[in-house]
């Protein structure tokens, strides 16, 4: 019985495709079956038409050309579906490389700090212990954050990412964040200019996630404007949308890397040169949250000059 089931499953492309978690029209097994079926029907039909119905060889030739064209189209779909699978496999490899490295770094910090604390022959002064407790706390947090980001990305990918609908004032969010980042901004020697239209309407979205979106964009702008610079933030109303702009004078994104910037796990060479920490998930999450909230994000960047990120979000309907 079990072997019979196994054979049935092996011959059932729908079951295989479900196992691979790809839709039928992206699944090579299913598409091959369809193509085989089309070829058989086409051969039989042309044979039947050629012998019984149509005497004019030109029409038969045209028919064959038409069918061949269709088959070419199907094989193109199959090839691109294979590309999709190859892409998924590449993502998995990158995932393992990045996750293992980004998790190992804080893990090493934790284990080496614990090694030091527990190997004390001479008791440490309280002040020195305190520094180690801060390290333990920060690195535990870092691992937790990475795991949270991975779960978010996975929820987004599987469509299980619920966002709340609340009235949110982006201006207030921005003020709060600028206050929170004040020490980081002045330590980085950066001038921030924030301009907002008076009486900006609210947007309808998930407060916590929209705050994360702005925080991420602000954090990037500060992080990649090394050695001082300026950040200009604008918040405006444009038709039925709220328009947000954040411009930095940072390292910029090289042209050839710009198309990958919202991809999961992607990190630009320039970013890596400034900051080795980072999972390459932040901007991917930012884009998805904005899109799921009915908004749009885009950017302009020039290497060595700076980057400007823009997004729009629909205004809350009265």
């Amino acid at each position, binding site marked *: 019985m079990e072997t019979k089931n196994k054979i049935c499953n092996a011959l059932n492309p729908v079951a295989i495709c479900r196992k691979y978690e790809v839709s039928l029209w992206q699944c090579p097994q299913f598409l091959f079956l369809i193509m085989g079926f089309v070829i058989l029907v086409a051969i039989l039909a042309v044979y039947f038409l050629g012998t019984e119905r149509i005497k004019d060889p030109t029409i038969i030739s045209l028919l064959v050309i038409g069918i061949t064209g269709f088959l070419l189209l199907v094989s193109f779909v199959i090839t691109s579906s294979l590309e999709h699978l190859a892409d998924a496999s590449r993502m998995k490899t990158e995932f393992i490389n990045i996750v293992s*490295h980004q998790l190992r770094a804080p893990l*090493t*910090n934790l*284990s*080496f700090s614990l090694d030091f604390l527990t190997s004390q022959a001479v008791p440490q002064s309280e002040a020195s212990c305190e520094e180690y407790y801060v390290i333990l706390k920060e690195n535990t947090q870092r691992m937790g954050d990475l795991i949270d980001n991975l779960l978010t990305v996975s929820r987004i990918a599987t469509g299980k990412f619920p966002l709340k609908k609340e009235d949110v004032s982006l201006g207030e969010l921005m003020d709060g964040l600028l206050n929170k980042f004040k020490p980081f901004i002045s330590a980085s020697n950066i001038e921030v200019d924030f301009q907002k239209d008076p009486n900006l309407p609210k947007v309808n979205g998930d407060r916590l996630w929209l705050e994360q979106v702005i925080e991420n964009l602000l954090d990037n702008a500060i992080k990649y404007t090394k050695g001082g610079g300026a950040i200009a933030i604008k918040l405006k109303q444009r038709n039925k949308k709220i328009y947000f702009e954040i411009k930095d004078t940072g390292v910029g994104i090289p042209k050839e890397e710009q198309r990958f910037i919202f991809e999961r796990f992607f990190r630009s060479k320039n970013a890596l040169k400034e900051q080795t920490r980072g999972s390459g998930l932040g901007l991917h999450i930012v884009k998805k949250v904005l899109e799921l909230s009915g908004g749009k994000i885009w950017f302009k960047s020039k290497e060595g000059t700076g980057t400007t990120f823009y997004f729009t979000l629909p205004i809350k309907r009265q």
Partner: protein
Amino acid sequence: MKKILFIEDESALQKSMGDSLRREGWEVLSALNGEIGLRQAKTECPDLILLDLILPKMDGFEVFRELKKNKETVNIPVIVLTNLEQMEDVEKALELGAKTYLVKANYTLSEVVSKIKDILK
């Protein structure tokens, strides 16, 4: 007193490793990126360099190649301490002349210290 240059961008690691090395009675110089590390190697002439590979500004391999080009730094023993564990990275580092290649996740702090002791002997 032996002088050790530790090129590593994780400040937490600079702290725990630095404290353990100082406890052994060695002087420790910390460099948080490749550029500073290379500069310190040239000016301070350390007895040993502990080198991470993923570094801001200038990665560990670049630093290593520069060290080998320079007359004053070519003979300083280098221990690579990293979380990269792909065979090609290990081979590349050993080819450049690394005394030993340690994957952080596979060693405890005291094991790293004893490796350093062996080389400084």
